[in-house]
């Protein structure tokens, strides 16, 4: 049984510390929608998404009302679209439009899965599909795209990495009137996971059930407040406090995930333990690190503090949920975290430090704006660096970087809402086109041979 102070603690977490369920994401298999033509496939896709996810918004709102915890986003992820359009990849944009229309009909904010998995090699239909991504992201509102370019088991597909450098540039260019927001809806992954509920990188893996509910919890504000109560604690104690707090947050997520799956006639998939910040004051991962004693996020000690935070969140969360998955760690998106935005404005966080931070947390270089004239090969090299970190360390890494058209260091991009705003960060000027131009694969590391 719970006590009065437990009740008041939960209410305080919601009222003052931004405790929320960040997303209920319904994963849907589209494999049964494949037909002879793109037109017919697109129709089937629209119908399936609209019927299976019909009640997602209503159910989320009921659950939110009953438990008194906000459920911020309602989303859908689908089978990588490149698979269901393999016979007519040049017409994949028809399916994209059907998905975007379905998302609008359902009233959800994002739908993920305009994706391709090319971690070993790029099949002909995959290449054609990937080339449609920039136009699709410019002509749709709610659709998100992702490409898996490497894995610990297969190495890194450097042809795909080179292509992605160009795709990011073009996605930003085609949405130049909106600060290049097209690129903010695109993720390049290494070791992509098949049950991630968070956008922009969510897709529904082929190994999943046909209808699944995955839930992403949040709560950086709650963790920060808990740490504020023990300002002089040593780091062992601080880690314990983070664990205990993550446990409570995750239990709320687990309850909502189970109940949502039941009501939506779906399988309960996973709870993703990620600490996901928003641009709101008091909902920042960066500020947790600063509370731990890092003077300013990006300074020395940041990587160590983040490693501890990430690990403690996982330990608390794993205990709290029967099924954990997705990305599960702390997110460090620059434009979506007020502490990160401030550090970037003061020049105290750099791309190099962010890259180091991605070695110890999920997920990668996330929501970082860079000068619009950054060469595609430089962006490709950033993707290669991140993919290498993921490949060698057996973790998921990602790049969601925005080469902001006609903007440079000193300027800022502003996407509004959850995507936030970000000052343009400088990139290294050295020409890496020879490396990227070589193509081929970076072979899988020796420790991938485990059989």
């Amino acid at each position: 049984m719970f006590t009065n102070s437990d009740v008041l603690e939960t209410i305080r977490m919601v009222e003052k510390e931004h405790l929320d369920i960040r997303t209920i994401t319904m994963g849907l298999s589209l494999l049964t929608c494949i037909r002879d033509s793109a037109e017919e496939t697109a129709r089937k896709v629209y119908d399936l998404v609209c019927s299976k996810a019909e009640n997602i918004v209503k159910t989320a709102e009921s659950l939110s009302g009953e438990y008194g915890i906000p459920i911020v986003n309602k989303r859908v992820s689908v089978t990588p679209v490149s698979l269901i359009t393999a016979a007519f990849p040049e017409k994949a944009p028809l399916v994209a439009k059907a998905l975007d229309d379905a998302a609008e009909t359902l009233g959800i904010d994002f739908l993920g899965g305009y994706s391709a998995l090319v971690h070993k090699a790029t099949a002909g239909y995959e290449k054609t599909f990937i080339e449609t991504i920039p136009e699709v992201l410019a002509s749709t509102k709610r659709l998100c795209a992702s490409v898996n370019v490497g894995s610990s088991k297969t190495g890194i597909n450097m042809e795909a990495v080179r292509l992605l450098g160009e795709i990011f540039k073009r996605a930003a260019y085609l949405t130049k009137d909106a600060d290049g927001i097209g690129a903010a809806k695109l993720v390049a992954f290494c070791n992509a996971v098949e049950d991630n509920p968070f956008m922009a990188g969510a897709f529904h893996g082929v190994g999943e059930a046909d209808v699944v509910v995955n839930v992403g919890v949040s709560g950086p504000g709650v963790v920060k407040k808990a740490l504020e109560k023990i300002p002089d604690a040593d780091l062992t104690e601080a880690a314990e406090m983070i664990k205990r707090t993550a446990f409570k947050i995750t239990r709320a997520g687990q309850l909502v995930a189970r109940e949502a799956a039941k009501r939506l006639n779906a399988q309960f998939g996973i709870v993703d333990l990620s600490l996901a910040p928003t641009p709101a004051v008091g909902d920042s991962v960066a500020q947790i690190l600063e509370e731990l004693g890092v003077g300013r996020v990006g300074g020395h000690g940041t990587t160590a503090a983040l490693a501890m935070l990430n690990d403690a969140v996982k330990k608390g969360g794993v205990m709290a949920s029967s099924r954990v998955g997705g990305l599960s760690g702390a997110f460090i998106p620059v434009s979506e975290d007020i502490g990160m935005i401030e550090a970037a404005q003061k020049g105290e966080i750099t791309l190099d430090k962010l890259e180091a931070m991605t070695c110890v947390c999920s997920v990668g270089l996330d929501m970082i704006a860079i000068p619009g004239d950054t060469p595609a090969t430089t962006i490709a090299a950033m993707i290669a660096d991140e993919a290498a970190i993921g490949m060698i360390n057996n973790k998921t890494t990602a790049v969601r970087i925005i080469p902001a058209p006609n903007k440079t260091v000193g300027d800022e991009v502003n996407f509004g809402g959850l995507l936030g705003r970000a000052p343009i960060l400088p990139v290294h000027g050295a020409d890496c086109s020879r490396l990227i131009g070589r193509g081929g694969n970076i072979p899988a590391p020796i420790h991938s041979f485990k059989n």
Partner: protein
Amino acid sequence: MKAVVTVTGKDRQGIIAKVSSFLWERGANIEDISQTVLGEYFAMIMIANVSQIKMELAALAKECAELGKQIGMSIYLQHEDIFNAMHNI
């Protein structure tokens, strides 16, 4: 099915009567009441049986929040499972 009703605010006069009759009219029966004082604020926590309510739980929660606004208090009604989940192993 049980729900936890939490009322917080400064003025406690007549609040129990108001909230309990409000809930009673909607089919919810209060089974337990306790109070906690936090400085000049007080928090009243009620356990209500909501098996017989005449509307969806989320709708009742919304009405409670609105009642709170009318009488200058903060009122939450939440399914007890959220507290069981978060505070019990």
